[in-house]
């Protein structure tokens, strides 16, 4: 870092001293970011988060109770609807694939992967997730896997 020169720089430097505890990320945060590189996938199509009831406030609530959060992920010809319900620090996902079809789904979160199945109607349920970033990777018949955008649940 450059030594503070002008009065503005000196004032900022003293602020940094006073608010210092917040100034640098904990090393655990930096390490986790580096570790996340192992999640890199090259074969999957990305399903973008196109609706999040948390931030897309519409005049009329379309579905769900206030403690339910609705997420929509869209890939080329697949929509993944997910409802997140909250119980303390635990999150539960209820999902629906559109068009309805069975799938194997990997739930990727915090360094661990769980595998579940969506039934013939395209429905799936995942209890006991952490309140942390999550991504679903869906393996469907006859096409490349589809991964949802990462989202903090």
């Amino acid at each position, binding site marked *: *870092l*450059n030594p*503070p020169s002008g*009065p*503005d720089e*000196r*004032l*900022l*430097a*003293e*602020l*940094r*001293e*006073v*608010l*210092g*505890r*917040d*100034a*640098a*990320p*904990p090393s*655990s*945060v*930096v390490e*986790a*970011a*580096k570790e*996340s*590189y192992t*999640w*890199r*996938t090259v074969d999957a199509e*990305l399903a973008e988060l196109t609706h*999040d009831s*948390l*931030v897309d406030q519409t005049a009329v609530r379309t579905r769900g109770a*206030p*403690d339910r*959060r609705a997420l929509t992920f869209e890939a080329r010809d697949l929509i993944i609807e997910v409802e997140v319900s*909250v119980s303390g*620090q635990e999150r539960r996902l209820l999902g629906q694939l559109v068009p309805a079809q069975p799938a194997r789904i990997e739930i990727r979160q915090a360094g661990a992967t769980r595998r579940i199945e969506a039934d013939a109607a395209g429905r799936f349920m995942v209890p006991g997730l952490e*309140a*942390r*970033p999550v*991504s679903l990777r869906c393996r469907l018949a006859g096409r490349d896997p589809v*991964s949802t*955008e*990462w*989202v*903090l649940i």
Partner: protein
Amino acid sequence: MATSTGVGELVRAAATGDRQAWDELVDRYSGLLWSIAMAYRLGRTDAADVVQTVWLKLLENLEKLRDPDRVGAWLATTARRECQRALVRTRRELPTDDAWRLEPRDAAIPTPEAVAVASERHRLLRMAFAQLPEQCQRLLRILMVASPPYEAVAAALDMPIGSIGPTRARCLERLRRRLSASGISADVGDS
């Protein structure tokens, strides 16, 4: 401070499996991302989750970035959006869980020397800072960390890049006036 030199190269290398390039990106930008989360007043747990989410989003977009040289601005924009999302999430879903984090996080544990020499001055500075408009606090929290490029600062705060310099000057001037009003030297740093 990190210039944009070579950043595009790092992005392209990371996109083709170069783990060291990824680590280098993380080292360069984690400070900026953390300061943005702090500027939006997230608790430390939420801040950690937001920063991790931003990196994961970059990971899935490495090959798709339109302008890899401007990855700093992309990260800052993504961080701002994720901070705003996290704030709503915390308000709605974790009203009690995060309550302890609303304690003054700025009250860093001081060393004994610091107490003797500067505690009163720092207390006044902290108070003066807390009285600044929200926009000033956010801007200064980001600027105080590692003088990040203004393009990234503008992206983090959704401000025009040309207004960062003037706003910085205005906010510091306000801070000085508040310090003077509380009876300590306006020219902080001379003590």
